[in-house]
C-alpha cells in the first residue's frame, strides 16, 4: 500500500545475535495481549527497523503524493474545486508530518529520513509515479487512491505501535473528505457532456490497475507479512485488503455509469466477491525499481523544493540563535 513492503533485503529475518530470547518472548506476550508498545519500551531490533521502514515509506508517500494533485491546483475548474483541492493537498502534507514524527519516536532523525527520500534510498508508493494528465485524474485520485489508502489505514489505527496508531487515527479522520471530493468530481464529469464523461472514463482506465497494485505484491510473494502480522503491525494481508477495495469500488463505478477496464471482472455469487483479472506485477516491479512514468520528475521536484528552502531554514535558525544570545546577555 503506501508502504508496499517491496524493499529488498527484508528486515525481520532472525534477530541480531545477543538479543535476549526472553525479551522477545515477553514482547510477543505484550503484543498478544493487545498492549500498545510505546517509544521507550523494550522492543526487538527487527520490530523497530520494520516500523521505521514502514512508517517512513508511508510518510514519503504522503509528501510525494502532493505532487500529482498539486499539478492541477492552478487549473482547477472553479473556486470551490480549487479550495477543496488546496485543503486536500495541505492535509497530505500534514499526514506526512504526523508520520515523520511517529517514525522519529523510534530513534531516527527527521534529517536522516528526508535524506533517505532525496537520495532515493527510501521507497514511496508506486501510485504517485503516474502522471495527472487531465482534471478527471484529480477525481480518480481522490476516489480511488484515497479510497485504497483508507482501506489500508483503518486497520493501522489498531497497530501495536502507539505513535503510529495515533497518527493513523488523525489521518483517517481527515481522509474521508478526500475520497468524497474525488467521487463528487467523477460524478459531475460522468453526468456532464459526452466529452466530460469520456474524460472520466479515461482517468478510470489509467488509474484502476495502478490502484490495485497499491496494496503490494500478492500474499504468496510478499516477504514481510508473517512477522508483521505476528507483531500486529499488519492486520490484513495485501490480497485481503485488495479484495475489500474491489468489492467496495466496483458498485461505485457502476453508479457513475463508467466501465472498469477489466474484461475478466465478474461477480461471484457463491463467494459474494467481485473476481478480477490478472494484475501486471511486472509493471509494479518496474515502477518500484524507478522506471515508472514520473519517478525521476518526482524526486527532482522534491530535491528542488528542499534546496530552494535551505536559505529559509538557515535564516530561521540564525534568527533563533541571535535572539537566544541576546536573551542570555
Amino acid at each position, binding site marked *: 500500500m503506501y508502504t508496499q513492503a517491496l524493499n529488498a533485503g527484508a528486515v525481520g529475518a532472525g534477530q541480531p545475535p545477543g538479543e535476549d530470547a526472553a525479551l522477545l518472548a515477553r514482547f510477543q506476550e505484550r503484543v498478544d495481549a493487545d498492549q500498545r508498545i*510505546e517509544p*521507550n519500551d523494550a522492543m526487538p531490533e527487527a520490530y523497530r527497523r520494520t516500523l521505521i521502514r514502514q512508517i517512513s515509506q508511508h510518510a514519503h508517500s504522503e509528501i510525494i503524493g502532493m505532487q500529482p494533485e498539486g499539478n492541477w491546483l492552478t487549473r482547477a475548474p472553479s473556486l470551490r474545486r480549487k479550495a477543496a483541492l488546496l*485543503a486536500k493537498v495541505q492535509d497530505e502534507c*500534514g499526514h506526512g508530518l*504526523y508520520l515523520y514524527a511517529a517514525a522519529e519516536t523510534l530513534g531516527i532523525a527527521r534529517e536522516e529520513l528526508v535524506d533517505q527520500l532525496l537520495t532515493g534510498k527510501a521507497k514511496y508508493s508506486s501510485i504517485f509515479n503516474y502522471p495527472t494528465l487531465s482534471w478527471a485524474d484529480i477525481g480518480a485520485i481522490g476516489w480511488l487512491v484515497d479510497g485504497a489508502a483508507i482501506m489500508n489505514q483503518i486497520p493501522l489505527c489498531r497497530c501495536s505501535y502507539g505513535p503510529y496508531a495515533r497518527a493513523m487515527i488523525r489521518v483517517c479522520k481527515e481522509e474521508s473528505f478526500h475520497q468524497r471530493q474525488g467521487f463528487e468530481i467523477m460524478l459531475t464529469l460522468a453526468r456532464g457532456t459526452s466529452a466530460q464523461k469520456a474524460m472520466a472514463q479515461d482517468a478510470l482506465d489509467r488509474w484502476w490497475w495502478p490502484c490495485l497494485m497499491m496494496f503490494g505484491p500478492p500474499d504468496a510473494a510478499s516477504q514481510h507479512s508473517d512477522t508483521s502480522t505476528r507483531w500486529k503491525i499488519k492486520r490484513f494481508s495485501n490480497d485481503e485488503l485488495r479484495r475489500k477495495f474491489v468489492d467496495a469500488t466496483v458498485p461505485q463505478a457502476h453508479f457513475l455509469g463508467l466501465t472498469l477496464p477489466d474484461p475478466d471482472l465478474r461477480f461471484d455469487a457463491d463467494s459474494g466477491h467481485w473476481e478480477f483479472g490478472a494484475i501486471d506485477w511486472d509493471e509494479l516491479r518496474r515502477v518500484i525499481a524507478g522506471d515508472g512514468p514520473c519517478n525521476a520528475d518526482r524526486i527532482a521536484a522534491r530535491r528542488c523544493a528542499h534546496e530552494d528552502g535551505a536559505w529559509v*531554514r538557515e535564516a*530561521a*535558525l540564525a534568527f533563533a540563535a541571535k535572539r537566544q544570545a541576546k536573551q542570555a546577555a
Partner: protein
Amino acid sequence: MTEPKIPLWEVFIRSRNGLAHKHVGSLHASDATLALQAARDLYTRRGEGLSIWVVPSHAITASDPADKGMMFEPAASKIYRHPTFYDVPDEVGHM
C-alpha cells in the same frame, strides 16, 4: 554539507469542550514563535482547539518504562483509596 538540526517540539491543545491541554503530536521548528504557527497549521486545521502549548521536547522529563513496577505497583494494592472499599448500608441511600 550537513545542515544543523531543527529542534523538536511537543504540541498540546485545549479543545473547545473545556478539557485540559492534551498532547497531540510533535513538530520541528527553529523557535517558539514558529513552533506555535506550525502547530496551528498542522494540528488545528478543523477547529480542533482554542489554545496551543508548544514545549521543547528536551524539556520534558519522562518516567522510565523499566521503573513501571516501582512507580505504579504500590497504588494497585491500596484498594482502600477507592470508595467501593467501604460498606454503607443500602438504607442510607446514595453517598
